[in-house]
């Protein structure tokens, strides 16, 4: 299932946040969205996932999601959004309970996603017992459990320290190699973008418009830190972002 954004525009009480965004999200690819903070990246993701309605334009699904997909458009949040009163297992079963699955199916799914995210030993741990990286692994496991057609990831690694981020990036690449999921990956970290993105969409400062789309053809599993091609792409992205970020930084918050 592909997603297509057609001339999306959005404003909050007269404050235009996004303008004229048209974008294709092809099946099996990771599309990274980068842009200065406050340019409407999170808003765009909420519009794509149907948590909010765009003021103008529309988000289209091309084709239907695979039959086994329980929740076609699934989010991974920056702050993990785990229920503190449920264990790792309970947090994953939460999103399966409303879908008429029997107990043994639920257990099979949980076993599978915990194994894929290397969490099998933490089944009965509570979120407060886990480190940030582990919490985000649980959130990723929860997202994988519903077999999403498209994963909508809002700065999933931004709350983590750089070592953990590096490890989780490798994990994400591993997961993608195993099963080519589709994702819209919002980040402000250009390094994440060049490591994970098949294409990278650069938004201007608010109102967010697409400034450029950069494609990276190097397969994900061949992208090493320090690779010259990636470095030069990252440099290029930074040149473009720099001015936007600087100008965005000087704007008054009330806008």
């Amino acid at each position, binding site marked *: 299932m592909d997603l297509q954004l057609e001339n999306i525009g959005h404003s909050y009480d007269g404050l235009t946040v996004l303008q004229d965004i048209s974008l294709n999200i092809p099946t099996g690819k990771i599309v990274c969205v980068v842009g200065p903070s406050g340019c409407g990246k999170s808003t765009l993701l909420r519009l794509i*996932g149907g*948590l909010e309605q765009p003021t103008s334009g529309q988000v289209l699904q091309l084709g239907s999601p695979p039959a086994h997909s329980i*929740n076609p*458009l*699934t*989010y991974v*949040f920056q*702050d993990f*959004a785990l*229920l*503190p*009163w*449920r264990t790792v297992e309970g947090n994953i079963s*939460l*999103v399966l*309970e*409303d879908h008429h699955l029997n107990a043994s199916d639920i257990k099979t799914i949980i076993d599978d996603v915990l194994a894929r995210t290397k969490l099998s030993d933490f089944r009965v741990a*509570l979120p*407060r017992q886990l480190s940030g990286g582990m919490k985000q692994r649980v959130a990723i496991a*929860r997202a994988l459990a*519903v077999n999403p057609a498209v994963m909508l990831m809002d700065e999933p690694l931004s709350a983590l320290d750089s070592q953990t981020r590096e490890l989780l990036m490798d994990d994400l690449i591993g997961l993608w190699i195993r099963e080519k999921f589709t994702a819209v990956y919002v980040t402000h970290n250009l390094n994440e973008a060049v490591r994970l993105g098949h294409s990278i969409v650069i938004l201007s400062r608010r109102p967010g418009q697409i400034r450029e789309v950069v494609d990276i053809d190097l397969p994900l599993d061949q992208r090493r830190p320090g690779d010259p091609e990636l470095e030069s792409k990252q440099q290029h992205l930074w040149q473009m972002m720099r001015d936007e970020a600087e100008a965005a930084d000087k704007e008054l918050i009330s806008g």
Partner: protein
Amino acid sequence: MADSTATAAKAAEARAAEATAAATKDTRRPVRFRGGGFVPQSRRWIGLAVFIILLLATEAGTRSGFISNLTLPRPSDVLATFVELFQSGLLWKHLLPSVSRLIVGALLGATVGIGVGIMIGLFSLVRAGLVPLVAAIFPIPKIALLPLFVIWFGIDEGSKYALIAFGTFTPTVVATYGAVDNVDRTLIRMGQSFSLTWFSIVRKIVLPGAMPGILSGLRVSLAIAIILLVAAEMLGAEYGIGAYILEAGALYDLERLFVGVTILSILGICVSAALTQIEKHLLRWRV
């Protein structure tokens, strides 16, 4: 020439090193600790010790005549009166009706209060309709309405249940909708993003998230329930802690008055301890 500058430099270096060593020697001391505090710590026996010290002081004061017998009864006399009450079997005759009134009334008020509070928290229409009403009835001293309750629910248990229930209801409602309002919106957004049903979101996210606030509201509500229990019993009951206290007060029997008051305190402590147990069980997930 070069050699002598090198030695001079070396000597200067050595002097500097010596100077710093000397300076470190005099002024070497640990950094002053200025953190700590502002964290409640469990000190189990202090509360009990304060109680005992106060009691012993009163006992000593009344025995020495420093406190006259008309001001305060002697704690040992109060204890003796209590033992007498216990042995005569009258204790249970007074305590059982009181406790059952408390349980029925508080259960009714708290259940309806939590229900209404959740409705207010979830539906803007209910909120718009009921919040002003709750604000209007909150400050009414419920005891003033007892005559009305007697007419509505009869002179017997009915009016007492109603009074306690009504008094428990308002603080519970306010605490509950506040707690629902404070549930982390990102968790609710998460539930919606996984297409959970509305009912699931309420049951699995809103309710557990509001539980800490609801339980701390119950602490206040149940204390109010005990106050109203006594008030109701003072205004018309043959048996009950309130009736016992009223009778003692009418006779200026300070020993029995204090026995009654002590029973109420113990009742309050028991309710509070029960809530602590419930919190420990339901809020295990908190740090």
